[in-house]
């Protein structure tokens, strides 16, 4: 539409709790989901993102702007991603991995899932169940048997303080 000449196009994104965000199209199309909508011409008005809440979307947009401002230099992009994710807690990371998946942003998806894996590395089984909301479907006997089989992997695990 009006996108041909110099002026950068701005898109309006709407979170599932009805917050509106403006973002440069050049940054927003890091999301393949958004890019497809733009290419299909559905981006004229407001783009509703039904699976992302406002808090997470704000964070994702910060990332989109930050990463697209960096020229093609993988090292610098990587260090931006590391820094961007460094102060995020587990719940935020979990929201972001869902958003990255829904928005189809592979670079964010890779970085966030790697970060979550890194956070999990020394955590206990109980911590993982709680954080991921996973129901223990083993019988006590089965659980004891799986644990016994890999007994040594329980050495050096962090004690269960949430963080």
């Amino acid at each position, binding site marked *: 539409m009006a996108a041909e000449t110099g002026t950068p196009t701005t898109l309006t994104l709407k979170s599932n709790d009805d917050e509106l965000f403006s973002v440069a199209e050049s940054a927003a199309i890091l999301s393949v989901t958004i890019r497809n909508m733009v290419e299909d011409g559905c981006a004229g008005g407001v783009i509703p993102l039904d699976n992302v809440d406002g808090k997470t979307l704000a964070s994702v947009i910060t990332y989109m702007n930050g990463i697209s401002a960096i020229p093609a230099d993988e090292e610098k992009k990587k260090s931006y991603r590391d820094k961007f994710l460094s102060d995020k807690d587990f719940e935020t990371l979990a929201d972001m991995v869902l958003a990255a998946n829904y928005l189809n942003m592979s670079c964010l998806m890779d970085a966030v899932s790697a970060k979550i*894996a890194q956070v999990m590395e020394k955590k206990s089984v109980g911590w993982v169940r709680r954080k991921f*909301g996973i129901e223990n479907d083993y019988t006590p006997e089965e659980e004891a048997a799986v644990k016994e089989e890999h007994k*040594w992997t329980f050495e050096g695990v962090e004690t269960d303080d949430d963080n």
Partner: protein
Amino acid sequence: MATESEKTTPSNIPPEIIEIILSKLSSVKSLLRFKSVSKSWNSIISDPVFIQNHLQSSNNSPNNNIFVSSNTDGTDRGFPLVDFDVRKSDAGKISEDNIPNGYNSILCECNGVLLLGSRVEYALWNPSIRCEMFLIYKYEFHEDYIVDYGICYDQITGDFKVVFIFPTKYAIYSSNNNSLTKKNLGTNYHTIDGTGSGLGIFVDGATYWILSDDTISTHLVYFDPRTDEIKRMQKPEQRQSDDDKFQLMNIASLRGRLCLYFYNKKERIAQIWMKEKGIDKWKEFITFHNFEAPYKLSRPICLVENKVVIQ
């Protein structure tokens, strides 16, 4: 931060994303521990395809610079292990308490699985899952001496095959079938001048050695796990002629690719050639001039960023 995370609204991450996250866990120890989380986590982690992919991504990872010297003799506390990083190199040990009884040397390595030897027998050992498997008594080979060894992982059947090369024949031990097969080489092979055994390396789906024949010319040979045959592979064209001043000294796996290490003693030039994945195409990777090889046996062992570590 502590107060904020008190809210225990568990995230609802679907299984396909859980699988992506688990595939990024770098430690096998954590993966094995998380088998206890639930039945569905156990089945994700136990899935052969998942295991294969996890292995592949850790092999290709630029952080994959942990290195156990082949033909390493152990002490009663463990086997030495070196971890190269960008700024430092760390010497460590493989879990001393868990070395299976009586094994005192590492003969070769493939995908993290080691071939161990004791005075009387051979075994395969996977230190990251602490699992060992007895293979064979040495007396079974009494009639012949071993030129070299190698382990080969058959990706399709998931079989670790151990290959023992003798001067005129070879034996393959399949750990899936628990069976030993002997075959003829059709030629005579020896270790190349000045090197011992333990040069067999597994890379890109096959196990490679450099061996010499009776005319003392050196050959790059490989074991193909699909056919159980040992064949020769062409060296790079530029390095094929007999009056070439470069001598093929060693082989290595750098970032999951097969590399040949040549040395021109007279002009003190070392050269590394790299084979492309999956196809027989060689590319000159690096040439060092004025390079005094520290030992005759020296070999490139890993890449740390843009530097080659040579042992």
